[in-house]
């Protein structure tokens, strides 16, 4: 294996692990679906009848993607694509909320009512994660 391929492999692996860790850090959404439903609702982006299905489904999608990223290498590219799309959607949702002036916590990594409200820092953090997912997908092609 050439040195470049080793580096790409390392990028692919590290990016996958970091993204999986970020996804798993939102495990509270699996434990407290009603709190997450409130967070989804507070974005005011989905029609009411889709709020609960989204709040039930998204945490499981994230968990399954995290498991694929960590333990099922064959499914890693597919999981990376899903994570990338999710991150883009979440970032757009946060951006819209910020433009509208909504000041609630996003409910991404915690359920506490004293969670800091959304800010442009959330956008920057998500942009970093999007870049990481893109790096991983590009690195995968080079391996």
């Amino acid at each position, binding site marked *: 294996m050439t040195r470049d391929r080793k580096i790409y492999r390392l990028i692919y692996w590290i990016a996958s692990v970091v993204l999986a860790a970020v996804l798993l850090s939102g495990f509270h959404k*699996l*434990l*407290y*679906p*009603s709190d997450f*439903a409130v967070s989804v*609702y*507070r974005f*005011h982006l989905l029609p*009411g*009848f889709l*709020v*609960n*299905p989204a*709040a*039930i*489904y998204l*945490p*499981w*999608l994230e*968990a*399954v*993607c995290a498991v*694929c990223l960590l333990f099922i290498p*064959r*499914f890693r*590219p*597919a*999981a990376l*694509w*899903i994570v990338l799309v999710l991150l883009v959607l979440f970032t757009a949702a946060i951006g819209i909320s910020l433009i509208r*002036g909504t*000041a*609630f*916590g996003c409910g991404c990594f915690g359920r506490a*009512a*004293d*969670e*800091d*409200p959304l800010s442009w820092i959330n956008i920057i953090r998500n942009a970093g994660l999007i870049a990481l997912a893109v790096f991983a997908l590009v690195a995968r092609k080079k391996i």
Partner: protein
Amino acid sequence: MRRLASHLHQMKTTIRQIGLILFVSGFLAVLANTVHPRKIPWVQDWSHQVESRAKDLRIRVVPFSGAKKLHADEEALFVDARSETDYTAGHIPDAVSLPFEALDEHFEQIMEWTDSDQELVVYCSNRECDDALLLSAELKSMGVSNLTLFIDGFDSWKTFGEAVE
């Protein structure tokens, strides 16, 4: 040509795998929400939520963190919409008591707020009570424009250890 075919094959595999991940996640979500001790209804009417009604009335809503910041800035006046008894038992420092049912008695005070464009942060006990929302709606109709509803209310203020008078 062979490279293109290989790319197409890889793409097809990835799309199939994406479908499988979406399906497995859906299956697990349905299963979990069937047996979960804190399961939620699949469809819920959100239109009666205080926040939703506030949004319809175009009243600004802030959570605990937002209210904490507004209180620290010392520019906004906090208005307690709970009963006089609850207010006496404990309230946010410097908050004034204005129970919804006693609105008429405070007419002059409200007119002063309207004229001075004083920022008001109205609260009641928690997300479930609608005293603060009703009061906010009434104040708005009386001409108070700089109005914010502190949705998490006094319960969260106490829970997170903020000072109480």
